């Protein structure tokens, strides 16, 4: 498929060599996981500080709804943590890390938020 231009340069072959895939730095996985964790915690805090009295006014309903949506990140936090759990199991290590517990706590907080809304 590659062909040479009038200049005698095979541009496609050069492009293939010049644009080698780039390996992402290892820290990126950790960083992504931490960002998800932060989003999860922010959503959990939002729900924990939820004033039920304020929910009598429909104008206040948007904010918790946003928090619940963001709280979905807890799921991914758990999903990504599963990689760690698998690697720990391979090394014979057991028990939840603080990060595991924090993600699970956040997920529970999101569920509690839902429960409070629907019990009212």
């Amino acid at each position, binding site marked *: 498929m590659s062909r040479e*231009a009038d200049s005698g340069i095979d541009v496609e072959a050069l492009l293939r*060599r*010049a*644009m080698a*895939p*780039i390996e992402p730095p290892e820290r990126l996985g950790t960083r*992504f996981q931490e*960002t*998800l964790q932060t989003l999860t915690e922010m959503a959990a805090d939002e729900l924990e500080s939820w004033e039920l009295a304020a929910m009598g006014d429909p104008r206040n309903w948007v904010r918790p709804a946003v928090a619940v949506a963001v709280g979905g990140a807890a799921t991914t936090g*758990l999903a990504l943590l599963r990689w760690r759990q698998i690697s720990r199991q391979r090394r014979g290590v057991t028990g939840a890390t603080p990060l595991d517990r924090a993600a699970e706590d956040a997920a529970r907080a999101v569920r509690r938020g839902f429960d409070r809304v629907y019990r009212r």
Partner: protein
Amino acid sequence: MDKAELDERFSELYRAHLRDVYSFAYYRVGNHHDAEDLTEQTFLQAYRHFERALNESDGRPLRPWLIRIAHNLAANLFRDRSRRPQTSIDDDDTTTVLRASHTTEDLVEERDELRRILDAVEDLPDDRREALIMRFALDMDNREIARAMGRSDGATKVLIHRAIKQLEGIVATTPTRGKRS
């Protein structure tokens, strides 16, 4: 699909395509710092819409969808900054790529040639540059590129053809560093 399965599918997506997204981001923005930001934001957006994407993909690969997210975010990044990439592709990386398979004598000439082609790619319009990144860095076929760019297969084929022709023109008129003096 329950949440556990959704989690597992997203984890698979992340593992399978992290390098693709990062490579696209790196060649698009020209430095590792922005490439990391762009990659992270791409996967965060992907997570937000993952279930819907799975439902609508009808079994088709999700790589074009991921790259499309990165493509849109990159456009936003440059629009926000109102500028082109700050730096060209790092010289160090070009050296690293070459070092593995070339002798010392070849290295300078080869590096100069690759630098010239990467500089030329940066002179292309955004859509042509992105199409070339997808084709040559990610090894995507025309159909995948078309999906990633929201174009028809035919329009994508024409886009890539024109990009290569333009690149040939730029390279042909740009002297190598060693030949300038």
